[in-house]
């Protein structure tokens, strides 16, 4: 039978001065998952190897690990799909401290989740006589995001978290989405206001890593995009992210193309003197090299067609603003579902 080498990250902070890799050679049985492979290594070769696991069925979210550089669930992955050149490198998930071998301290992940009140806040705390009902259409809005199993694969591979551990991270933003879009939650507007602040929804670069690693239908990047749509709908625009979107819309709807001289100042705010001064160095550097965008911004030929797309913007809106109102009791209109069917 074909053999495979599992090259596994080992580290016991109490014993080892630094991490190292240990190779385990095993037979590549057809149909064996990576998790079963690890179980076999533990049972037959090295009982000291530490990793998390529980259900073995991609439901509990315990066995996320980095394999050949990217986070995935060991129980949901066929070993033979990974064994390029007969070698599989296994590391603990990233952006967290290692406790032992493949086990990391998940506390930063949980701490981030707690920031967004990851529970339903209804409009009244009185005990309702009946359950709080949703229509099928209302539920469809949160159908995908409720599949999150909190495996932290997205947190592990998030590019922004690599440079700033204050960032809310993909799973937390997806959790915020889950309640913002829940027709039974009464605090959607408050939630939106909170996550438009620093470290929130506008700090995501859209790198797509979270959705690519997500083993469920949660797909955080798509949810982040929907949160931003809700932010724009609710007109919470006193922040760089929303101003950037508005500025983008303004220049493209006027000329069909992006005006790079206008957008930076619009994004940071025309009266934000320190931030405007902060734009100067790069502007001067580019000007000196003749790299600055042309001062006269030319429109595309038939800009009228693009203008009419933007003048009919309201018609294209699928999520109506009245669903999320200030200090609000949030009720989602059933029309808003048609967007998700797309």
């Amino acid at each position: 039978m074909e053999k495979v080498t599992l090259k596994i990250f080992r580290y016991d902070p109490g014993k080892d001065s630094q991490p190292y890799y240990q190779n385990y050679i095993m037979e590549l049985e057809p149909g064996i998952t990576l998790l079963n492979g690890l179980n076999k290594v533990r049972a037959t070769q090295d009982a000291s190897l530490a990793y998390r696991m529980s259900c073995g069925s991609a439901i509990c979210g315990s066995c996320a690990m980095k394999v050949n550089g990217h986070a995935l669930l060991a129980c949901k992955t066929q070993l033979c799909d990974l064994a390029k050149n007969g070698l599989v490198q296994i590391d603990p998930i990233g952006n967290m401290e290692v406790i032992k071998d493949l086990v990391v301290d998940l506390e930063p992940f949980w701490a981030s989740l707690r920031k967004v009140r990851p529970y339903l806040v209804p409009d009244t705390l009185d005990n309702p006589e009946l359950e709080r009902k949703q229509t099928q259409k209302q539920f469809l809005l949160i159908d995908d995001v409720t599949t999150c199993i909190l495996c932290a694969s997205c947190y592990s591979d998030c590019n922004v978290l690599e440079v700033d551990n204050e960032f809310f991270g993909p799973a937390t933003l997806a959790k915020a989405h889950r309640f913002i879009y829940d027709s039974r939650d009464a605090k959607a507007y408050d939630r939106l206001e909170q996550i438009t602040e620093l470290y929130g929804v506008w700090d995501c670069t859209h790198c797509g890593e979270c959705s690519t690693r997500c083993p469920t239908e949660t797909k955080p990047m798509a949810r982040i995009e929907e949160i931003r749509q809700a932010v724009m709908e609710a007109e919470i625009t006193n922040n760089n992210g929303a101003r950037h979107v508005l500025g983008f819309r303004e220049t493209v709807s006027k000329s069909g193309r992006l005006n790079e001289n206008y957008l930076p100042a619009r994004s940071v705010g025309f009266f934000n003197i320190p931030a405007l001064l902060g734009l100067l160095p790069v502007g001067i550097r580019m000007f000196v090299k003749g790299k600055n965008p042309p001062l006269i911004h030319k429109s595309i030929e038939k800009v009228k067609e693009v203008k009419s797309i933007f003048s009919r913007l309201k018609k294209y809106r699928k999520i109506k603003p009245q669903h999320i109102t200030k200090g609000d009791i949030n009720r989602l209109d059933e029309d808003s579902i048609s967007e998700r069917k797309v």
Partner: protein
Amino acid sequence: MVNCKYALFTGCVAKGAGRELLTATEAVCEKLSIELAEMTDASCCGAGVISEDNPMAADLLNARTFALAEEQGLDIMNICITCQGVHNKTKNKLDNNPEYKAEVNLELKRISGKEYKGVVKIQHFGQVILGDSVLEKMKNMVVRPLTGLKAGAFYGCYATRPHECSDLDNPDSPDEMEKIIEALGATPVDYAARLKCCGFPIIMMNKKNSLALSGNALNSAQNAGADCLITQCPLCHLNLDAYQPEIPGEYNMPIIHIQQLVGLALGLEQNELKMNTHIVNPAGILSQFA
């Protein structure tokens, strides 16, 4: 002779803060007998920003662009990987949802009398170069092999993620850019950050994090011994090059558009490729190829 013609979608940056990209593309394509018809009436792709305000408006902009190319009877060549990724995403969405496509087309017809049929193909410059006979032709036309130049490919997020919108054979460990670098005689450098985010999308929201991401990329490439980084996206180029003097740490890493690297090997001069407009001057590392 390779004889092919594309509708050139320049994107906004190649007409604005990255005009050297357009110059280099035109010069290289002329060398390779790739005919270009610039889409002067195409709009911005929305860059994933318009869709944060209104997804259908963004889809309409791109459906209109696709319809324009179909009217010209040409496939689209992109020179910005962000435009390419956004186009791919829109195309997937329209092609896989006939009902939605009909809704978008109805509106498009009302606005412009156009219709997106679904026949146009959309390719980035890199794919065109790697296509059928172009690569062989290009190899034969190399008059200035870039021997000894250690070049790190910086793919750009939209080239690889999400996987369903990627044109790469293996988005988690691609080798397409390395193939081009090798074909020009240079040596591709493998480094940890080659598929990472440059941070550009948040430069106006969180400059500190944005530049830290660029710094990670430069640091990773520098430690792996790269002389320069090669980009497919003018936005990555802006963050890595134009902002490089503000990135914490000591870097002097020239950032080169992939079109410029091709042009150099095909015998074009650095000034013809407008490499003198870069903030980090590549003349030093390229002096042996002058």
